[in-house]
Each structure stands twice: as C-alpha cells, then as structure tokens.
C-alpha cells in the first residue's frame, strides 16, 4: 500500500516535471497521449468492464470537441464548453445504450458503427453550426483572467489535471457496486439478471459514462490541435480507441494507460523508418494480439507473478480489476 502511494506520487511528480525536459513536439505527443488515456478509460469502462461493444467512441468525442469549439467562438469559457460537451455525450450515450438492451456483439457493433457514420455526416453537412468539412479553426485554449493555458507547457498541465480527475473518478466508479455490476454483466449476463442486477440500468450507464469520458477527451483534443474538422472523428478513430483498449488489456484498470501510450507513441517512434512505419506498426499490433491476447497488462502480470511465484495469488475485492 505504502509502495503504491509512493509510486503514485512519483508518477505525479514525473508528469508535472515532464514539460521542463521535453521539446515542443515531444510535449505535444505526450499531451495527445494523455487525452487518449481519458478517451480509452471511457471505452474500457463500456467495453472492458461492462462488455458492451462500441464502435462510435470518436462520435462521442466529437460532441466534446465541437461543444468547446462552437461555444468558445461565442466567448463561453472553456470549462463550460467542456461540461456541455460531456453532458451531450452522456445523453447520446444513454440513447445508444437502448439498442444495447436489444442486440449484442456484432449486431451492437453495427448499430454503433452506423451511429459514428451518421455523426460524421451531420458534422460535415451542418455547415452553419460545424463549419462543414473545413471545420473550425483557432479553437481557444482556456484562460482564467490573467492565468492563461495558451502555451503548450501550461496546456499540458491543464490536460494533466483533467486526466487526473478522469482517472480518479473512473477508479471511484469502478470500485463501487456499479463496477461490480458491470463486471457481473460482462462475465455472465443471464446470471447477473437472475441475482437482481438490472441490465437496463447498468447497460445504459455503462454506455453513457463511457461516452462522457469521450466527451471530456474530445473537449481537450480540440484546443490541443487548435482546429477541428469532421475527418478527425471517423470510424478509423473509433477503431483506434478500440485498439488501445484491447492492446492495453480489456477490463483492466491499467489497460488504457498502456494502450494509449503504445498506440500514440509507437507510430511516432517508427516514423524514422519512412514508408515502412505503417507496416511495422500493423505487424507489431498483430503479433501483440497473437501472443498477448489479454493485452500488454498480461505481460506485466507475468513479470509480477514470476517475481513472487511462491506467494499465492490473491486479489483484493476493493480495487477495480
């Protein structure tokens, strides 16, 4: 426990200190990774914990991005835009939860995939509101009076603060009885219902909360890039989030961190290999899935177990695994 606290403090100190040592480009990659961590936490809750497939995470993300961009242009403070974006994403998450009560697995995948395409088309064609395919440029970064987060370093710290909120709140939700109900539904839906777990309530919540995190990530994504257009919220992006969550380790709390890091940083690292990088990237993803079906967290477990193989593996019921 003490070791865990120490580790947490070390991670926080390290992440706060990071902008001092990193150059602008690296800082951008790290900021983007943090935003993706928030998004992946949401999808991990919906898919990893509650077992509900969603291929429209990028659409939920778009609600956050467009909320801060559209409201920001009208002089509304960034945080208000973020809250509106999260609320809209939550609402649409609830709506998308209803089909999840009727259909499962690939049928649910098709429903959510369709939703992503619809949102993309609306973003592209509702020009008066969204700017159409040109999108919205000069998305403002937050500023509190004299205190401004406009510089890359300051905005990184701003994202870090929201990411901390996201991680802490996800931990809080998942370690409650809701988290247990989500896992029960994932592991044995019929049994969960037979012991009184309302599939309707929890499936709707799993979708809505996962979408809310996507809204938060999307709200931070827009000012990080400075401009947004519908091309950033396509099915491709949704699949990228799916990859993060699956690569990291479905239904594991550490999964989204590892997944977001690998999916964001690996292509950047491989960029030196010119045109080959996409092939190497895709190949390593395939290999990881073949040999580590439980995600990269599985690797961690393996190392952990071999380092203390004599002691019996027992897990605490309080932490959201």
């Amino acid at each position, binding site marked *: 426990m003490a070791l865990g606290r120490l580790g947490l403090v070390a991670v926080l100190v390290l992440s706060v200190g990071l902008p001092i040592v990193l150059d602008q480009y690296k800082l951008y990659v790290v900021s983007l990774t943090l935003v993706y961590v928030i998004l992946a936490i949401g999808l991990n809750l919906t898919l990893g914990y509650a077992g509900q497939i969603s291929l429209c995470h990028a659409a939920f993300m778009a609600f956050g991005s467009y909320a801060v961009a559209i409201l920001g242009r009208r002089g509304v403070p960034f945080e208000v835009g973020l809250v509106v974006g999260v609320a809209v994403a939550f609402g649409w998450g609830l709506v998308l939860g209803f089909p999840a009560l009727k259909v499962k697995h690939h049928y649910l995948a098709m429903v959510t995939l369709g939703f992503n395409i619809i949102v993309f088309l609306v973003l592209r064609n509702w020009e008066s509101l969204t700017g159409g395919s040109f999108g919205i440029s000069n998305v403002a970064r937050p500023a509190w009076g004299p205190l401004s987060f406009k510089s890359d370093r300051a905005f990184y710290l701003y994202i870090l603060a929201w990411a901390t909120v996201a991680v802490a709140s996800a931990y809080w939700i998942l370690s409650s*009885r809701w988290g*247990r109900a989500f896992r029960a539904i994932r*592991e044995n839906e*019929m049994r969960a219902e037979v*012991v009184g777990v309302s599939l309707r*309530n929890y499936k709707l919540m799993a979708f809505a909360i996962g979408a809310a995190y996507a809204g938060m990530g999307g709200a931070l994504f827009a000012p990080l890039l400075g401009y947004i257009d519908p091309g950033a919220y396509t099915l491709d992006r949704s699949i990228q989030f799916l990859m993060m969550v699956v690569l990291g380790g479905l239904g594991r709390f550490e999964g989204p961190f590892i997944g977001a890091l690998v999916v964001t940083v690996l292509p950047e690292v491989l960029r030196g290999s010119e045109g080959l990088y996409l092939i190497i990237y895709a190949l390593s993803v395939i290999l990881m899935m073949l040999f580590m079906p439980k995600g990269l967290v599985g690797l961690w477990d393996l190392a952990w177990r071999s380092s203390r193989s004599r002691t019996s593996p*027992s897990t605490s019921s309080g932490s959201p695994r």
Partner: protein
Amino acid sequence: MALLEIENLTKHFFRLSALSRVSLSVEPGELLGVIGPNGSGKTTLFNCVTGVLRPSDGHVRFRGEDITGRTADTVYHRGIARTFQLIQLFPEMTVLENMLVATQEKEGTLLSRLLHREEPEATVRALALLEFLGIAGLEENPASNLSYGQQKLLDFGMALMSDPQLILLDEPMAGVNPTMIKNLVGHILELNARGYTFVVIEHNMEVVMSLCRRIVVLSQGERIAEGTPAEIADNPLVLDAYFGR
C-alpha cells in the same frame, strides 16, 4: 394461500412445445420435488418462473401477485432465487464478490449504490453463509479456482444471499460426490426447517425420496403425476415415462 401458483404454463420453442399447460402450486415452508426424464421441461419450468424465459401462455403468481413475463431481476427482488443445473458464476470475480453481487441490488437506489461504498452487513452475511456451507477461507479466490463441488456450493450460497422466500434448485446433486450430497441434503433440510421454501429438480431418486414429501412428475412438457414419494414410486404412468412401455 399458496406461495407460488403456476397455472397452465406453456412454452413453445418454434413448433416444439417444451411445456404444455403445466399447473402446480407450492405451499409456504414446503420442500417440493420436480422429477422427470431428460427433456421433460423441468428446467424450462424454472426458466419461465424466474423470468429467464418468457412463457408463451399461462400465469405465474407469487404471493398472490402475477409475475408472468417479468424480467429476471424483478422476479429476484420479489423473493425467488435459484441455482443452475450447469453452474453459473462470475468466474473472474472473487468468491466474496460473487456472494456480494447477489445481494447488492436488494436495497437502495441506483445512485446510492454508487455513493455508499461500505457493505459491512452483506459481507458478514456472505462470510457466515460460506462458513455454513463449509467453504470458508476461500473468499478471496477467483470463483474459477474452486473445485466443481465448491462451485456448486457457491451457486447455492448466492441463492441464499438475498434471504429469498422461495429457492428453486436445479439438480443440486448432479456431479457431486456422495459425502457432499449428504452435506447438501443436510443444508437443505436445515434451511427448510428454518422456514425457507424449496422446489428441487433432481435425478437422484434416493435424494428426492428423502427430501420431499410431495413430488410432481413432468414428462414431455406435461404434468403426468403428483403425490407422495411412495405414490410416485408405484405410479404406472411414471414408470412408463422413465422406462417406456
């Protein structure tokens, strides 16, 4: 008034009728046996009562309230718990979590389940039940680490967690060793003496005969006989159903 009343319950799967116009009632404090050859509709009967399946026709009344076609969670909250022929657990969750999830939805609102995190009473009850069933000390293990017999007991323990008024046991003795069978029979009789009502599907005739004072026999989805163990043992219709003419 009967605790559970089943009236003309019918379930079709496409053209196949798994249950046809089955009626029976369960009195409070009773230990009713349901027997019948494989495929006679016993488990379908349980599924239709507990909301796992929606009956095609007929009525199920529990404590006077019509619960026909209600969802499984609603039926559970009304006071009917069950176990499964093929064990149904949450394999990656710990034994204690399996027990706790079976009672966590009993009280409070959806929001209170997020805000109130401590469950001291439920935990005490879970540990006491595990002790009663003889599987204490395993609570931190994932359910999948348990032996078959222990899983069967855990399934039973989960059914007891919410303090239900009626417990439906679907072949509790299948695949269980003779010592464990003795224990389970002891547990069921003890709980029955404490006031729990049971309906038991069981193939082990010795067990059924020793547990139940009244037995209902199903064959090909129809109720063909009802009576005391002695009456059932001598009923020619029952012998026909099991051995053919």
